[in-house]
């Protein structure tokens, strides 16, 4: 089976042009892109992503500016490439759940990944988003219990985000038995791909992930690559490497 993989980028980081260019480049290989809308208090993110998000906020980029960048990306990618928004609950809550969903639909976003809305708090959001045809992505973790995995596997839309370890983005991957079992368990009970994220940063860890899951998500490494030079050349080279290997 073909794998189903995603990249994570912080919106308008390092600037609008380089972000859009990186987004388009990554979608030559990746099936979907997670676009991070910066939040002042990104508790699930390690220093690399948190710093990038902080820089974007400090540079004065607004939510509406990000939507314009998304429009440009959307107009230039094939229809089978999906865009997700990854952000924190307060962004949704303050714009109103219904209104936020409408904005997402207006800009061609397939769904949302919100690390501070766990499954048990998701109903008030999913009741509305499902009606709007949006996918709300659920997480499974090394702490998930079989009955929780079952519930999540059966309700999942789009894909299931399995967190490779207990920790935040930017930690190194350490695939232990608990998460391997959880992923295997989820795979037998769901129609959507089960994708591994957190700590995946090179061809080696991608291969590791694919032994267990249907795909991988690369985040921190993408931001690090953008930090390496001023013209995205390291970033582009990495995407080419992935294209050649997978």
């Amino acid at each position: 089976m073909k794998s189903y993989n995603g990249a994570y980028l912080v919106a308008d980081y390092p600037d609008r042009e380089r972000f859009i260019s990186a987004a388009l480049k990554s979608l030559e290989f990746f099936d979907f892109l997670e676009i991070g809308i910066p939040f002042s208090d990104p508790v699930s993110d390690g220093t690399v992503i948190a710093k990038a998000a902080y820089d974007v906020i400090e540079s004065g980029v607004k939510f509406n500016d990000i939507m314009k960048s998304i429009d440009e990306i959307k107009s230039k990618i094939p229809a089978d490439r999906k865009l997700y928004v990854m952000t924190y609950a307060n962004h949704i809550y303050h714009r109103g759940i219904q209104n936020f969903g409408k904005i997402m639909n207006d800009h061609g976003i397939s769904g949302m990944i919100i690390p501070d809305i766990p499954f048990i708090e998701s109903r008030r959001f999913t009741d509305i988003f499902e009606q709007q045809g949006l996918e709300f992505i659920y997480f499974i973790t090394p702490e998930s219990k079989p009955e929780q995995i079952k519930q999540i596997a059966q309700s999942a839309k789009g894909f299931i985000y399995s967190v490779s370890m207990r920790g935040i983005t930017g930690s190194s991957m350490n695939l232990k038995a608990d998460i391997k079992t959880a992923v295997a368990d989820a795979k037998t009970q769901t129609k959507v791909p089960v994708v591994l994220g957190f700590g995946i940063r090179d061809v080696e860890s991608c291969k590791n992930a694919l032994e267990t899951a249907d795909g991988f998500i690369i985040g921190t490494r993408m931001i690090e690559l953008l930090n390496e030079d001023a013209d995205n050349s390291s970033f582009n080279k990495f995407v080419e490497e992935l294209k050649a290997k997978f």
Partner: protein
Amino acid sequence: MENYPDIKGYFGEYGGRFVAETLINVLAELEDTYAAFRKDEAMKAELDYLYKFYAGRPTPVYYAKNMSQKYDIEIYLKREDLLHTGAHKLNNCLGQILLTKYMGKKRIIAETGAGQHGVATATVAALMDMDCTVYMGSVDVERQAPNVNRMKLLGTKVVPVEAGSRTLKDAVNAAMQDWVANCVDTHYLIGSVVGPHPFPLIVRDFQRIIGDEARSQMKDDYGIMPDFGIACVGGGSNAAGFFTGFADSDVKLIGIEAGGRSDKPGDHCMTLSNGRPGIFQGMLSYLLDTEEAQVAEVHSVSAGLDYPSVGPEHSNWKDSGRVEYNFCTDKQALDACLELSRSEGIIPALESSHAIGYLINNREKFKKKKVLINLSGRGDKDLGIIFKEAVI
């Protein structure tokens, strides 16, 4: 009021568990263990013992005669400043350290703003021989230096947090991140009635001894019920514990937030007066944020009140009208600190000075009334700021 939170961890509209999926089962375990802990007579006896012989409970209610005469108000002070380590924070820490032992965990982490919760946590960690790490914003490390040294002396590792505004909220973020990674053997000993369920419940329960004691002391020692109960509100733990003891009475309850330099955004921490509901640090509660939904920069002269949100139970009390929320500015608090020091020989923490400052500045409203103030802590830690800011 007694029945909150509901089984989903909500106080009316507010509360919940807005955290990473990884923590959901850890919180469930905490909730279950806490329920068993409350029913365990041996645990209750041990906590009572520690409160009495280690911490120095009950703390007295003192009739502040000089100030009362000056303002023609009957002013009573619940003396949490006399508690071991100098603030109400120890009530919660003793409870939670026993709970940590009960869960079989070996390591604790905490956040701190003023350093009072950090010191109280370091104290109980030393007492129970546990490994302890305290996160503290680097701005606070600087302005509350004596407490940093106390923590170090007690054997705790203090980690300065450089992210964001480098104050209390950022220390909470750092502690949450540590917890997600180490939840299997670590307990997050949170310092106020904030964060995901069941923390607002647990901390309130361990702090309600303030209100319960004060209520019976008013009756036994003075033969009266107060007309008003006033407490300062940062995250809201001293106020929640104090108010809960009077919840089913007619006592008018007033929570005082930090009015800071002015009511302009960024100059204050008036979450309940000026904020709106939002989701932050695990809870749905009132929040100070920008039009762009970013958490606002806030300011208070007192590090313990320098926080952009507030415990969910306070949000519910505000909406229901059971508690009135008001404010006291930096300057009024500093003046009140000086005044209480000079008139009663009690140096209050700058946090607690907000409650005193509110009373003094609204004295007409309280004339001839009986007012009980929760003096949540003592001011030794604040001497540096007091001498820098106040004209003495």
